[in-house]
């Protein structure tokens, strides 16, 4: 009985659903389009060395965009990630160079693994501050994270008086060497940062799809009241997403400092905007409830390849900004068109059935 109307609707709806499928795959189509375009237009674009270099660039934004995706799915926003990148880089640099002075003549130096863990903890802690402001003090996410953006950036500048921590090679006698491994090391031919990206991305995708927490993240963004009545601990879910975003930002801070072997307090400025752009390009809805980790990664690659490719073609950086902005706007317009089409298709089907 349910089969008959479905079949009857099939021929008329097929052109619509074809268009829908195309729209749903738009980020992939965009990715393929930029790849094809630049492999023709830019010489050496497809060389292995260039691809790996681009992947390293993209990875930085991809980390931030993953954290941002979860935050946006819950209906929030995290503007502080760029500053967390900067502050965490400074924390790592400070610990490598200076250790912690215990005030009575001793100074503790940590090895590189410990430094990495401490830095990650700092990132998570700042995320927790965001979360507490939003859940306990009811500050709007935009404002809370904007405040934390300024505070973190200020702290990063204060930590060195605005100077760079240079030359983070460490001293063998203190056990602080090896900091460059994250940024420059390779494993099975791929940079370590790419491996970390793969691990974190798989973890995040698994979390989104196969864990109660992941399901709750979507429920909170889709309908917070309904989620609360269903017993979802909305505040805990929100705490988690901001802490995860801080964690991702801390990873980026570590990788950048390690690549440069130096920590600069202005690192990460406006990174949050790139992260939001990648998430939106990947199909994350700013009104919450929708988005995927896979889509976000693809979105980050589209943006990254676009800007690297344009650089290789010698397009001026001013035009690059214009093009990037247009791509984001088009993506969102297509997204809206897809929603409308989708709801029209369902309404038509319902009108036929009922």
């Amino acid at each position, binding site marked *: 009985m*349910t089969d008959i109307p*479905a079949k009857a609707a099939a021929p008329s709806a097929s052109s619509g659903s074809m268009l829908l499928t195309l729209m749903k795959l738009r980020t992939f189509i965009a990715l393929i389009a930029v790849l094809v375009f630049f492999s023709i237009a830019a010489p050496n674009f497809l060389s292995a060395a260039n691809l790996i270099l681009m992947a390293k660039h993209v990875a930085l934004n991809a980390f931030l965009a993953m954290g941002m995706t979860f935050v946006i799915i819950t209906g929030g926003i995290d503007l502080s990630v760029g500053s967390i990148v900067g502050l965490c880089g400074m924390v790592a640099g400070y610990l490598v160079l200076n250790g912690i002075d215990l005030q009575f003549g001793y100074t503790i130096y940590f090895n590189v693994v410990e430094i990495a863990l401490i830095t990650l903890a700092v990132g998570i802690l700042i995320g927790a501050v965001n979360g507490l402001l939003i859940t306990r003090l009811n500050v709007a996410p935009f404002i809370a994270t904007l405040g934390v953006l300024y505070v973190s950036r200020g702290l990063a500048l204060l930590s060195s008086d605005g100077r760079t921590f240079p030359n983070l090679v460490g001293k063998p006698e203190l056990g602080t060497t090896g900091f460059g491994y994250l940024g420059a090391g390779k494993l099975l031919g791929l940079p370590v940062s790419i491996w970390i990206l793969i691990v974190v991305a798989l973890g995040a995708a698994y979390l989104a799809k*196969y*864990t*109660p*927490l992941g*399901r*709750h993240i*979507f*429920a909170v963004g*889709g*309908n917070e*009241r*309904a*989620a*609360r*009545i*269903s*017993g*979802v*601990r909305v505040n805990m879910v929100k705490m988690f997403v901001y802490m995860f975003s801080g964690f991702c930002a801390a990873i980026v801070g570590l990788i950048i400092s390690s690549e440069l072997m130096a920590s600069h307090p202005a690192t990460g400025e406006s990174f949050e905007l790139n992260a939001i752009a990648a998430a939106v390009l990947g199909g994350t809805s700013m009104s919450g*409830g*929708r988005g995927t980790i896979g889509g976000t990664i693809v979105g980050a690659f589209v943006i990254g390849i676009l800007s690297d490719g344009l650089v290789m073609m010698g397009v001026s950086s001013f035009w690059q900004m214009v093009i990037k902005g247009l791509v984001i706007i088009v993506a969102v317009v297509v997204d809206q068109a897809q929603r409308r089409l989708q*709801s029209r298709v*369902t*309404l038509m*089907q*319902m*009108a036929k059935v*009922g």
Partner: protein
Amino acid sequence: MSAVVARDVILKLEDVSKVYSGTVAVKRANFEVRRGAVNVLVGENGAGKSTLMKIIAGVEQPTAGRILLEGEEVSFSSSGDAVNRGIGMVFQELNLFGNMTVAENIFATREITNRFRKIDRREQERRAAEFLERLQAGIRPDMLVEDLRIGQQQLVEIAKAVSLDARILIMDEPTSALSAAEVEILFKVIADLKARGVAIVYISHRLEELIRIGDYITVLRDGRITGQEQMKNVDTQWIVRQMIGSDAKDFAKADGHLPGEEIFRAEDICLPRATGGLAVDHVSLSLRAGEILGIYGLMGAGRSELFDCIMGRHGHATGAIFIAGKQVRERDTTRRIRRGLALIPEDRQREGLVSILSVASNLTLASLSRFARLFHIRGAEERQAVTGMVRELAIKVADPAQEVSSLSGGNQQKVVIGKALLTGPKVLLMDEPSRGIDVGAKADVFRTMRKLSRDGLGILFATSDLDEVMALSDRIAVMSNGKLTGMFDRAKATEAAIVAASALGHGPAGHRETTTHD
């Protein structure tokens, strides 16, 4: 019904339908509005009255059908369009700007300006005062709307509609918050408008009111028009028959099982209202396993608030609740659900469903921990539970991965019920479980309630539908103004006693007078 003479028809709807995602609100309605008359529209909650009126007022566009204004086909793309054609509407939900003055509200979008396009505040207030004078409400045009009582706000809404000088004026439950004296004034205003040839469309639940001022009556049931007559030819019985229909209610029969031990008790539940006073006023009740306890009350009686308190949604509520004799000390919803409480909220769009998630995700949302080992959701078990629940509740869905918003209202409600049942509750709280769903789904929901009570669940269900509470409950509690004002055994309950209890300490004094005089 075609016997009604078609003279003086100013507005005509032909075969109008309106489909929302989830429900068909109006089905092929034919409706005529006559000039110089009060055209009454009645129907139960969710029958589609408000939707039909919003179509006339241009707020909603019909999915199908034609609108004829004085014989000429029109389509309104916005309420501004309809206002320009002389159609005004007093909305049921107040559409006022609380942060503006009464005069500014009355002239919103039609501001009176001087030569330099500056708003002429004094002229606006003078004109507003004229309209308010006719309503004798003691409202000054320079008062802020948010400082007025709800009843006064409703009068402002009416003044605003009257000031439009409309040819057709739609009033959607204009008296719901008015005192008896204010109602009398409103009726005078209506008579005055009628004499000037204005066509009035009047929606209300209060039958005695309709019979008093109506000239023509149209009855809606489940989105269809079931009767259209001149008021002088009809009586209350006719109206009720058209509204409810002979076949409409299919209450599952009681099976005669006896309730068991006490499974739930609430003691002295209190919830302060933001505006002072108590929304829930020292309510205590107890429920036995396998028992259905109906809570009857009018709108604003505090039924939903009581449920919210029981579920732990208000941190500042006081009182104690017990499940199977043990006090529930957990104060948050999450842990109360684990203790065996589950709520089916009244507003399923806003509180029941996450509409962009799939049917399956919605069903298991409250019970995910059951399917998870450590942190991994076991897909097979989840799917099994989903298909089991879909079959058990007869949810009509081709694929549980479909978005829940694509289902009809009745099936959406079943998803909300299924979600609650998957948590394995001992006590089920159902707030207006049959609101806004079609007849077939209602019967399914009632059957499910019977079955659950047979399985030993305690069910508390709140409703403002008298038939429903009489037919389904083992015992009937009545709430009014936050207080528990009556508790009846099914066998001893009479409709008159229940209605009397639901009006205690509630509403305008004059209203009670009229009922006692009858």
